[in-house]
């Protein structure tokens, strides 16, 4: 079976790398006669880098002379880029990604993004999250619609944790008809806190919310109390990451840690969403060190820790990242970059056909730029997401997930294998 062969190949690669971060399912796969990926729930983790991350300094086109011309002080010097394929390379602060790339779990698509020309953070995030660039009236998010578009026959009973959003509120990406749980802290997700007697008070509140005349509060209340009970059964206060995974002590590190915790607790999580802010570097962006480097270290070490922590279960997890738009090719007058257009996306997963940069590179010479200033888009970000929800969540109705788009299986980049 395809997965076993791939696993064997990877295992060979990893023997060379010799990293401690090898998910054990891969070594186990060596001995397993067959692994059936379809028997387990597939999970999708979606990350949003808010503030428009500077894709050109994240996955650096180090063989592009124009890159170095346009960025006199903030470019990543060629010798410091972690080369991937002779043309692209990682920012040195992404060193944690290199083993994942070498193991062919990490794939990249460059020059991807939303075709809408807006350079407003708010609009661009809104469009990207609604999944309907240029169309404001959409009330829900693409990931919520993907859950609605799932092939019913393939699904078991819905868990209240089917969709989890890290943070105090359900983000736009996950807004919609399918119930979603937003949480900031797994351990404190209970009325009465960690107190062993909390259930008594919680039950009283449950009665109050049951009777609310506000359907919004009644519905949210019902989801809340069911989720509290389920989570409590997993003893969340005593979580220790596996395989020595160390999460950065940051809001993003916390999100990653808790996503791992929820995925491993077998609560029926199918999609999880988290965001990481602080990418809007108009001033003093820095190059190998500096503001962007700091964000990237947080970003990559959080993701690498999640991967390590998941171990076996990473086999069925796919992670996709995005940011609302890229940044100007040329650096501005204040050592930063302004709002641009195309950007880079990462895809990571047990099934991902990694070790490859997908998409067509549009080039950085002045005449190749979008509006003479930005990286042009050659891959609609929805094509990347559509493939993930088609193959991973088995969502079928692409007109529902991405209305008015041209996404269809024949346009997929095929960074995931065909489903068995």
């Amino acid at each position, binding site marked *: 079976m395809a997965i076993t062969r791939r696993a064997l190949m990877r295992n060979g690669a990893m023997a060379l790398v010799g990293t401690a971060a090898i998910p054990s399912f891969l070594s186990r796969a060596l001995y397993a006669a067959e692994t059936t990926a379809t028997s387990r729930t597939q999970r999708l983790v979606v990350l949003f880098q*808010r*503030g428009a991350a500077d894709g050109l300094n994240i996955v650096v086109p180090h063989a592009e002379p124009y890159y170095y011309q*346009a960025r006199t002080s903030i470019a990543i010097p060629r010798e410091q880029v972690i080369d991937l394929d002779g043309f692209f390379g990682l920012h040195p602060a992404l060193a944690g990604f290199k083993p994942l790339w070498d193991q062919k779990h990490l794939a990249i698509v460059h020059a991807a993004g939303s075709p809408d020309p807006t*350079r*407003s*953070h*708010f609009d661009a995030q809104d469009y990207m999250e609604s999944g309907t660039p240029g169309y404001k009236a959409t009330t829900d998010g693409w990931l919520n619609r993907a859950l609605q578009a799932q092939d019913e026959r393939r699904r078991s009973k819905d868990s209240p944790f089917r969709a989890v959003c890290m943070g*105090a*509120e359900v983000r736009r990406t996950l*807004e919609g008809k399918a119930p979603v*749980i*937003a*949480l*900031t*802290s797994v351990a*404190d*997700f209970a*009325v*009465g*806190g960690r*107190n062993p*007697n*909390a*259930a*008594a*008070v919680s*039950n*009283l*509140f449950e*009665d*109050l*919310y049951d*009777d*609310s*005349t*506000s359907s*919004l*509060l*009644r519905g949210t*209340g019902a989801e*809340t109390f069911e989720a509290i009970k389920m989570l409590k059964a997993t003893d969340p206060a005593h979580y220790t990451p596996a395989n020595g995974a160390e999460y*950065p*002590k*940051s809001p*993003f590190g916390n999100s990653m840690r808790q996503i791992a915790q929820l995925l491993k607790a077998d609560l029926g999580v199918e999609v999880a969403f988290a965001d990481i802010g*602080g*990418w809007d*570097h*108009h*001033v003093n962006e820095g190059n190998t060190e500096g*503001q962007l*480097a*700091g964000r990237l270290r*947080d970003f990559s070490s959080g993701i690498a820790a999640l991967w390590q922590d998941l171990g076996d279960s990473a086999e069925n997890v796919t992670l996709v990242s995005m940011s609302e738009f890229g940044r100007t090719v*040329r650096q*501005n*007058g*204040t050592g930063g970059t*302004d709002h641009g257009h195309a950007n880079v996306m990462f895809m990571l997963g047990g099934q991902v056909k990694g070790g490859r940069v997908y998409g067509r590179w549009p080039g950085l010479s*002045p005449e190749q730029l979008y509006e003479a200033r930005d990286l042009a888009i050659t891959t609609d970000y929805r094509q990347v997401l559509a493939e993930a929800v088609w193959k991973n969540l088995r969502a079928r109705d692409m007109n529902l997930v991405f209305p008015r788009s041209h996404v269809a299986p024949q346009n997929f980049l095929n960074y995931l294998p065909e489903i068995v």
Partner: protein
Amino acid sequence: MRNLRVTVAIAALAALIPGTGQAAFGAAPAAHKTATAGASAQTNDRAKALHLLDRMTFGPRPGEVQQVEAMGIDRWLDRQLHPKKIDDSELDQRLANYRAPFMSPQDLMLRFPPRNLIRQALKGKFPVPRAEPQHAVWESQIAIVRQRQLEKQAPAGQQSAPGPSMQPAGQAADMMPPPPIDAPGSTASANIDTASLLSLAPQQRFEKLLKMEPGQFPDFVRSIPPKDRLEVISGMTPAQRETVVALVNPRMVVANETEAVRLQRDIYSGRQLEQVMTEFWLNHFNIYARKNEIEPYYLAQFENDAIAPHALGKFEDLLDAVAQSPAMLIYLDNVQSIGPDSIAALRREHPGMPRYELAQMMPSEQPSMSASVPPQFHNKPHSGINENYGRELMELHTVGVNGGYTQQDVIEAARVLTGWTVAPPRQGGGFRFDPNRHEPGDKMVMGHRIRSGGEDEGMDLLHILATSPATAHFISRELAVRFVSDAPSEALVDRMAKTFLSTHGNIGKVLKTMIDSREFWSTPDAGNKIKTPLDYVVSAARATDADVTQPYRLVAELKTMGMPLSGTQQPNGYAMTNDAWASSSELIDRMNFALALAANRIPGVKVSIDQLLGPDSASLSAEEQEARLEQAILQGPAPERMHEAVLQSLNENQTATRAVATVVLAGDGGGNPFAGGMNRTEVQSQNMRQAIMAGLLIGSPDFQRR
């Protein structure tokens, strides 16, 4: 319950408002036919007063609904629209405990120096103030910075703390709280006899602390258990307290007190409409406090001088004040923006060239055709311009994203605003127009030609934007979403926008149009706005008549609930719609907050349920007590089933009491080393049976709505 009281009320108040009557309320359920006409009118007046207070204030305090009922809606509104006439001595008394938020940014920087000034002082580039107590604060900080520098030079193996690169961006290492003050076993523990120090009179204690070896103070505080730390500053004057906290971390005084005063005003100001509108504009003109180390030094000024004085005034005055506020110019990077053809830019390229020669190199005064050509990247054009403020000024502050501007307009607006910057701290740190940075030439913004004219160009631009019909519409909609409904009718927004235009942007008049509208009182929307975390926390403190002596935990709680003050990085501020605040974690945080508040488990906040119950409460049955709490907290009887559910808590009280009596909120003390611990006597004095009932009511779905 909520619906009951509001529905009753509204059905009748419909009849009271000319021209609004039956069409809006004819379909309302006629559930109250049994009420006599007189009683019904009274109920309706009360419900109307409650609706008004729910929407246009941070919720009623005990007795306030009755006051408004007696006074009448119109008089109340008229009074609130003239806030200076309202006595605010209760608030003033509380604010007397804080000094920092009333100082100028320059003063703040001298008394509570940011770290970059300390570093400059270390290099001898900035004079250390000689007068006490500033001198001690500076010396203490210099010693701390010096100590860190020594640690950095130490061999790498000896370092354990992660470098600043691990911090989230926008949260400069300097802005981070100092190392956890609770860390036990500090090695450099100060050689001070804590007990004898604490036994001194406040003045002597203060003097002794000032004389402590510079840099020793943080270790000394660390050596005291958190619950006893308040004793270090007890009895001291506000200025002395500030100084003592500043010895540990001067930046924290600035941030903490600015937030504290803001929350105190929200809770205690009698000028509620002004305060609610101040919060509205602070969100509309959002600033992220952790943008950089210096931003917090400008936030109090921003609130006191730019926002509050114009909160009910003319929109253009407000817009001008914001545009010239250092806080906004820093937050949206305009301080960095330099015209590519300005003298400053030319000087950069031709260092040493005399000014008159530079002036000759500048383009002659003609329409800036260069700007209509998209910036090419081999030419130099774009260098120095920062578009951030120019964009948000149009997209978020005035005409809105559909206001009819293009990317080219954004660039032109940014060119207009070049030179709008902030003076360095030694020169006052205020707004400054720097002609050397200003891009010469005429500009075209949204079809308007703005004649070359230095600072006046910016004023022209602001005038064009402030008086645009798109702005009138955009602001009116935002107000209607906040105060009327998540999806306000176009008709209402149009009427408000019309008032906006005909009164030259008089915000008070726009509000009056809104409140006089039938939509404002319309049944389907009554009680249908979910409180934001700020609404919720403040309204709970108001409803319970809480005595808030230290608001730090309330500030921290807002963060837990996802709405930290000046804490959202994105310039669009927080959403004011229901879907943003009705999530599971949000509800859990709110229920826990309600329990902690009622059980007096929030340090610095005291609730007296006895007082809420009123006279003779001891002789009342549990059921009668519950009814009084309903009246006090919900301003009316709860529906039967809710009433029963709350009463049921009396049977559960064995376990539930234990749970409530030990509720711990996840938030911290906002980093303040003297935020204090739990006051055990107060927790114990609270009757837990009553506390659970009150907590259930505050955490109930009814209290989430306004």
